[in-house]
C-alpha cells in the first residue's frame, strides 16, 4: 500500500482492513497525524479525544467486524455521543450535561464498527450557512458552508473519509458543494433523528458527507432503518444495500430543472450543469428540461416552517438563554415565537403544493430523477454577506437555501455530487433528486457524474498552505 491511510476512501480502507492489509490502529494513527497538521488551518473539530480514538482502534486490531470496522468518522456536534456534551455550536448549550447515551445515528455507526473520531463544528443550532470558525480547505479565506461545515471541512481536508451531518435547508449539500464532496440527504425519515438536536421536526434530514459516491452508499446502508425512538422511520421501504448497481444511466429519464428558484446562477455553475446534462445524455439517458414554477414559493415556506418549529423546540430555553444566542439565529427564534399559526399552516400547505408538483412531474414524464445546481455560487468568503450576479445580488443565505430547500420541503432523496472544477478553480456541484426512497437511483446517477468529473478532488488551498 503506497497511499497514506488517511487519504483512503471509506470503501478502500474498509477493504484493506477486512483483508488484514491495514490495521484499524494504523488508520487511526494516520488520521490523527493528519488532524494535527491540518486542524490548526481548517478548525473543523470541536473536540477529538485522541487517546480514546487510539484505544478504540487498537481494540479492533486483529478482529473482524461490521462494514465500517475500524473506519474513523466525524460527527456533527448536534448528535449525542454518550459521555460528551452536545454543544450545537452555541453558548446557550454550554452548560448542557454530557449525553447519557448515543444518538441513533452514532449508535448505528458504532455497531457497524466505526471509530468515533470527534465532534465537528456546526453553525449555531444547525441554523446557518457559515459555520465559524471553520475554514474551507479549498481556500482558507472562504467558508466551508453550513450548517454541517465542520464535517465537510474534516472530510475535504482528509482527516476522516466520512462523517454525518443534518440537512434542514441544504446543511449537508451546501458544505458538499463548497468543499467538493458528495453530500447525501436521504429521503425524509430514512435515518433516525433520535438523539440529535432538532431545528425543524418536519424538515430535518440526517445524512452523510464523503469524498466518493460509493462511500455515501456504504454509510447510508449502515445508518438507514427503522428506530422506535423516531416513529417517522417505521414501516419504510427496505434499507438500500451498500453497493451501487454499476448499470450506468442508460435508459433513464432525467429532467434538468430550469428557471426559478435555480436562477440566477454563476456562469461556472451553469456551465457545470450543462456539462453534466451532456455527459449523462451521451451515457444513454433521455435528458430533457423542466420547470416547476411552484418551487418559487419554497423559500418563504421553508423560512416560515423553520422559524416556527425551531422557536417551538427552543421555547423553554429562550427566557434563560436568548442573550447567549447569536443575532442571526436569535432573531429567527424570537420571530418564530410570534409567527401567526395561519402563516405556518399556509407554509405547510405550500409545501404540499410543492410535493404534488414534484410527484406530477415525475409521473407525467416517467422520470427517474431531476438534476439541478446544488447552489448558485461558489463558497462565500467568511465575511461575505451578498452574492453578486450579472446585474443582481442577494443575501448569501437566500442564494444557498433557495436551491436546496425544495428538496427538504419535498422530502425527496437528494445527492450533491462534484461535477468538476469551475473557471475560478473551485469545485462545482449538481444535486440529483429521485422518487421517495429511491436513493440507489440517485447514487447511480451521481456515480456517473463522478466518473465524468474525475472522482476525488484535492483542495488546493490547504495544500498550498501546508507547503508554506
Amino acid at each position, binding site marked *: 500500500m503506497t497511499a497514506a491511510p488517511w487519504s483512503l476512501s471509506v470503501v478502500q480502507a474498509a477493504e484493506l482492513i477486512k483483508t488484514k492489509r491495514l490495521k484499524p490502529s494504523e488508520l487511526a494513527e494516520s488520521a490523527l497525524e493528519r488532524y494535527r497538521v491540518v486542524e490548526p488551518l481548517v478548525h473543523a473539530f470541536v473536540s477529538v479525544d485522541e487517546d480514546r480514538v487510539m484505544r478504540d482502534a487498537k481494540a479492533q486490531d486483529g478482529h473482524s467486524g461490521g462494514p465500517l470496522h475500524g473506519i474513523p468518522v466525524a460527527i456533527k456536534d448536534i448528535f449525542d455521543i454518550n459521555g460528551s456534551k452536545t454543544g450545537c455550536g452555541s453558548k446557550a448549550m454550554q452548560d448542557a450535561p454530557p449525553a447519557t447515551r448515543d444518538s441513533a445515528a452514532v449508535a448505528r455507526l458504532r455497531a457497524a464498527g466505526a471509530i468515533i473520531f470527534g465532534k465537528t463544528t456546526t453553525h449555531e443550532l444547525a441554523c446557518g450557512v457559515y459555520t465559524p470558525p471553520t475554514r474551507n480547505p479549498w481556500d482558507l479565506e472562504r467558508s466551508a458552508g453550513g450548517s454541517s461545515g465542520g464535517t465537510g471541512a474534516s472530510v475535504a481536508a482528509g482527516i476522516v473519509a466520512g462523517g454525518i451531518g443534518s440537512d434542514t435547508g441544504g446543511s449537508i449539500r451546501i458544505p458538499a458543494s463548497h468543499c467538493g464532496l458528495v453530500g447525501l440527504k436521504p*429521503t*425524509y*425519515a430514512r435515518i433516525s433523528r433520535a438523539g440529535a438536536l432538532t431545528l425543524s421536526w*418536519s424538515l430535518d434530514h440526517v445524512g452523510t458527507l464523503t469524498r466518493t459516491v460509493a462511500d455515501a452508499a456504504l454509510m447510508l446502508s449502515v445508518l438507514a432503518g427503522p428506530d422506535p425512538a423516531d416513529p*417517522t422511520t417505521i414501516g*419504510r421501504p427496505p434499507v438500500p444495500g451498500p453497493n451501487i448497481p454499476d448499470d450506468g444511466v442508460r435508459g433513464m429519464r432525467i429532467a434538468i430543472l430550469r428557471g426559478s428558484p435555480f436562477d440566477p446562477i454563476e456562469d461556472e455553475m451553469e456551465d457545470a450543469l450543462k456539462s453534466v446534462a451532456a455527459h449523462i445524455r451521451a451515457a444513454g439517458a433521455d435528458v430533457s428540461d423542466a420547470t416547476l414554477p411552484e418551487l418559487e*414559493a*419554497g423559500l*418563504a*415556506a421553508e*423560512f*416560515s416552517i423553520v*422559524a416556527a418549529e425551531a422557536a417551538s423546540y427552543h421555547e423553554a430555553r*429562550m*427566557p434563560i438563554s*436568548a442573550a447567549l444566542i447569536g*443575532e442571526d439565529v*436569535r*432573531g*429567527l427564534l*424570537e*420571530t418564530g*415565537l*410570534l*409567527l*401567526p399559526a395561519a*402563516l*405556518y*399552516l*399556509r*407554509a*405547510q*400547505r*405550500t*409545501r*404540499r*403544493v410543492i*410535493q404534488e408538483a414534484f*410527484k406530477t412531474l415525475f409521473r407525467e414524464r416517467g422520470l427517474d430523477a431531476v438534476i439541478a445546481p446544488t447552489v448558485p455560487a461558489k463558497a462565500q468568503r467568511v465575511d461575505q454577506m451578498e452574492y453578486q450576479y450579472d446585474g443582481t445580488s442577494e443575501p448569501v443565505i437566500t442564494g444557498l437555501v433557495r436551491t436546496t430547500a425544495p428538496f427538504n420541503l*419535498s*422530502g*425527496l432523496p437528494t445527492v450533491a455530487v462534484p461535477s468538476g472544477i469551475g473557471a475560478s478553480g473551485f469545485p462545482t456541484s449538481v444535486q440529483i433528486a429521485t*422518487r*421517495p*426512497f429511491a436513493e440507489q437511483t440517485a447514487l447511480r446517477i451521481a456515480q456517473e457524474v463522478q466518473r465524468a468529473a474525475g472522482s476525488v478532488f484535492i483542495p488546493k488551498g490547504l495544500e498550498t498552505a501546508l507547503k508554506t
Partner: protein
Amino acid sequence: MNEETVREWARMLTIRLPEDRVETVTAQLEGQIAEHGGLSPEELEGIEPAIVFEPEWAE
C-alpha cells in the same frame, strides 16, 4: 405590523421579549408576513397542510 403590536402579542403569549429586541423582531416578523409563508390563500384553496409530513407518494 408595528412595535406596539409585537409588544402586545408577546405579552399575551407570555413570551419574554426584551425592549431592545422589539425593533428587530418587528422588522423580521413584518418580512415573514409579507412573504405570506409561500403561496396566497387563493392559490391554496382546497390544499391540506402537510402537518404529518409523509414523504411517500400515495398511489
